[in-house]
């Protein structure tokens, strides 16, 4: 039933898919983390405008499916902007804004969870707000963010498989193409699944290691 020898001839194609999956995940999550930090801090900001903008962003993105976001950005947005994004850029944008909203909530939760005595201690020593955030609050909050961030990274990496619908040549897209053209669905989809599993499990290990290193 299994005939993995046939998979080998398609490995270059799957490799290309893997490359795009990793590219979009890494770049998308990097931007997502920056967005998350900006809007997460926005959610706890005393500046009304900043905090409202941040809440709207988080609620809109959390309240709509990734698949809809992908379709909208790739097919609907160009009608407004008259600018056609290539599918890879669109894929990165989707992952970035989607993960950014969830990461914003992670950042907010972690910063909120730091005892307010820490801010007071920093400020009472003459550090300004920015310095206190940077040297005292953020390092402690960051450590608490790692487990939920790891979770979000894994979810987003798996979400990249949905980008096949906007023609991003990532792993799932390649798998689907090979499977339907060569009638080897079992072998190909099993291989694709293993690829995702390996990526995510490696990430899990890396995060566990990082968390242990940050022990204090």
């Amino acid at each position, binding site marked *: 039933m299994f005939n993995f020898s046939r998979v080998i001839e398609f490995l270059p194609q799957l490799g290309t898919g893997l490359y795009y999956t990793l590219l979009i995940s890494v770049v998308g999550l990097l931007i997502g983390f920056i967005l998350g930090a900006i809007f997460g801090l926005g959610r706890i900001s005393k500046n009304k405008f900043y905090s409202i903008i941040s809440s709207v962003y988080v609620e809109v993105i959390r309240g709509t499916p990734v698949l809809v976001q992908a379709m909208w950005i790739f097919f609907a947005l160009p009608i407004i902007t008259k600018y056609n994004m290539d599918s890879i850029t669109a894929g990165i944008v989707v992952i970035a804004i989607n993960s950014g909203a969830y990461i914003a909530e992670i950042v907010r939760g972690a910063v909120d969870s730091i*005892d307010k*005595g*820490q801010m*007071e*201690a*920093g*400020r*009472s*020593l*003459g*550090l*300004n707000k920015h*310095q206190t955030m940077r*040297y*005292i609050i953020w*390092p*402690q909050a960051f*450590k608490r963010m790692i487990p939920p961030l790891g979770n979000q990274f894994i979810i987003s990496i798996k979400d990249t498989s949905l980008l096949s619908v906007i023609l991003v040549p990532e792993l799932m897209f390649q798998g689907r193409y090979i499977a339907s053209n060569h009638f080897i669905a079992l072998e190909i989809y099993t291989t694709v699944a293993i690829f995702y599993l390996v990526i995510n499990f490696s990430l899990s290990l890396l995060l566990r290691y990082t968390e242990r290193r940050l022990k*204090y």
Partner: protein
Amino acid sequence: MITVQDLHKSFGDNEVLKGINCEVEEKEVVCVIGPSGSGKSTFLRCLNLLEDITSGDVIVDGYNLKDRTTDINMIRTEVGMVFQQFNLFPHKTVIENVMLAPRKVRKISVQEARERGEALLEKVGLAEKADQYPAQLSGGQQQRVAIARALAMEPKLMLFDEPTSALDPELVGEVLEVMKQLAKEGMTMVVVTHEMGFAREVADRVLFMDEGIIMEENTPEVIFTNPNSERTKNFLNKVL
């Protein structure tokens, strides 16, 4: 060093400070006593603007804290604060806790900050703990590190907010000892405390607060042996 004029502080509708007036001279040690909820801690926290002032004036080292032109970060570098809960930075070692503010605010070199930090840890009797993390220390040790951390900025004035209230009884002494030493060296100190023995021995002046005002202000001898106000008498009868 400090002049407080008609200080009021409200949290919403709840008026906690109802017109405080007092002066603290240079090198003076002032202890603030009183029942819980009397506004002692809030009063202390107004002195470095950890609580904003509802009305009245607080003048510290010649600067009115209510003036918009007053740089509060600059004032705070001159006013050390020690908290009931220590509030050490848990992700930094003891010596890093002490070095951080002088490095980042005073911009002194690592070398100089380390030397200053080590000298201060020596002074509070914790030189050998420099490379440990706060979580590895007892409460009394943590509080002594917190004192060293505040002193590292070379403040002109130190505020203590119930520094021994969170400690096990057997650890109170070591912290008070460090504070006594500091007083002896001529540091200006305002101490909110429940340690009547300390107030009696070390304070130049004791303020008794109740219901948001200073009920009585006198030398420790008078306060503890022959207080003027009934309230003071009642309070001391309960705690002594």
